[in-house]
């Protein structure tokens, strides 16, 4: 008992350190954002003009398009990552022969470790032209009356390209979590489903239901990676201040905005603060996502048929 208590006490400083660093990060972001909040108020988040000027009185920063672009591309990424990572997990655990299984696991592990610039260059040189030619152009020609497809695909740099690239980048992260959860489902539940006369497909469906919380956790992680990704997205999204429903329109994201502008931000009076405020919005989004997930988990616990 005494030893355990000592151990517990020894752990306190470490937990405090983690929490302290987190608090410190938030404080720094808040402190540096105050300047722009005093100047613009919430307009920094609700307007779409980005005006850098040598004359501080003309400066104006509204990052709404970047927030929009971050949510849009990360949303696309999640929509791609969900089916891919679940299908991958089921295939690896239930269907793949032992040899292929190992290779698949190694491949996804490598994918999580690849420097993101690699994805960016691949995206810019291969993915963008590919998506433009085989997805955007046919869809635009035939379905441009649908708002989603209404923007003429000029360069191919777009929300869609950004979203797909992000989807590819974050799938391995979601897949690793979902695969482990699926693999470690207690054998007794597998037996139980089959004992009820389930086919392999039906059993899989029931067992996926069992790991719903892990799927959600994997997607939250993927979303976090996606919304924080900078270099790769900025190479394929077009870096344009733009709010459009169309998948084919170019856009911007918070992370790529900060990465692109930080270098020269110090020339201007208010831009650094604006970028801090932009970064702060990512923490709000992160917080909102976590609250949402928390509520979903709670709902599942009180499930009613």
């Amino acid at each position, binding site marked *: 008992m005494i030893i355990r208590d000592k151990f517990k006490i020894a752990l306190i400083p470490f937990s405090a350190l983690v929490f302290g660093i987190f608090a410190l990060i938030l404080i720094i972001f808040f402190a540096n954002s105050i300047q722009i909040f005093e100047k613009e108020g919430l307009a920094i988040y609700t307007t779409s003009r980005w005006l850098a000027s040598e004359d501080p009185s003309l400066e104006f920063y509204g990052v709404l398009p970047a927030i929009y672009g971050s949510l849009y591309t990360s949303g696309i990424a999640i929509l791609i990552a969900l089916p891919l990572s679940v299908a991958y997990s089921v295939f690896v655990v239930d269907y793949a022969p032992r040899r292929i299984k190992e290779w698949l696991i190694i491949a996804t592990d490598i994918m999580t470790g690849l420097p993101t610039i690699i994805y960016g260059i691949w995206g810019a040189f291969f993915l963008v032209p590919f998506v433009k030619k085989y997805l955007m152009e046919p869809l635009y020609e035939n379905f441009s009356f649908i708002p989603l497809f209404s923007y003429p695909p000029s360069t191919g740099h777009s929300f869609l390209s950004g979203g797909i690239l992000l989807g590819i980048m974050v799938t391995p992260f979601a897949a690793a979590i979902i695969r482990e959860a699926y693999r470690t489902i207690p054998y007794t539940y597998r*037996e*139980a489903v*089959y004992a*009820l*006369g389930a086919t392999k497909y039906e059993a899989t469906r029931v067992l996926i*239901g*069992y790991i719903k919380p892990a799927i959600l956790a994997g997607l939250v992680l993927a979303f976090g990676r996606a919304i924080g990704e900078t270099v790769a997205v900025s190479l394929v999204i077009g870096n344009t201040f733009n709010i459009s429903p169309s998948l084919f329109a170019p856009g911007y994201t918070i992370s790529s905005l900060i990465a692109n502008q930080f270098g020269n931000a110090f020339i201007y009076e208010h831009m650094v603060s604006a970028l801090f405020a932009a970064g702060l919005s990512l923490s709000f989004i992160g917080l909102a996502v976590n609250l949402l997930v928390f509520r979903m988990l709670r709902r599942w616990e009180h*499930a009613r048929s």
Partner: protein
Amino acid sequence: MNSLEIINLNVYYGNRHVIKGINLKIPQKVVFAIIGPSGSGKSTLLRAINRLIELDEDAKVEGDVRLFKKSIYEMDPREVRRRIGMVFQQPNPFPHMSIYDNVALGPRLNKLVRNKEELDYLVEWALKKAALWDEVKDRLGDLASKLSGGQQQRLCIARALALKPDVLLLDEPTSALDPVSTAKIENLLLELKKSYTVVIVTHRIQQAARIGDYTAFLLDGKLVEVGDTAQIFVNPKDRRTEAYITGRFG
């Protein structure tokens, strides 16, 4: 007529011979108890009877099992499992599903019902059969994981009964339960044998004595002795059976 006939059954895991030439006839509407020390092959035998053993790629089965005279190997495995229900050692209702959905799952998968009314009716019927209805009728939407261990095990019985099986296999269904829950389930099984064939594997010799009409003693994958429970306990023919039931080994 016998509900189950096991004919020269052999089971191997890889090259380990686990069930060794077992022959058994299990009559209808009885409680048939299978006893034997740990590792004697009781669970393996049950899994061979409803073809659940085929989930294990290493397992190989020889011989035959007949369900009402028809070989289970000439039937679709899904059909076999629907008609031969199974309850496991650890209560294993699906914890992410409601009480209702746990019972409804089998009928849904096997398309036994045509509409919600029929399903409601079947779920209620199964829960009543499993002596659980009164305890859960007001909370059918609660997650199954909220039930006590004993209730969960009765839920698993209800889940199996909802498929309207001919035979119910139970693999040490009370070994994780307290005496009160155990007594409830034993009484339930005595009730169920009026309409089903109940095959129960048990570690507790007293349990076989209390509820078994017949008892089979398994040792090291072989059937040592089978007969009327009274005869097995009062007047065992084999020395090893006597030694086991008097607690001198195992």
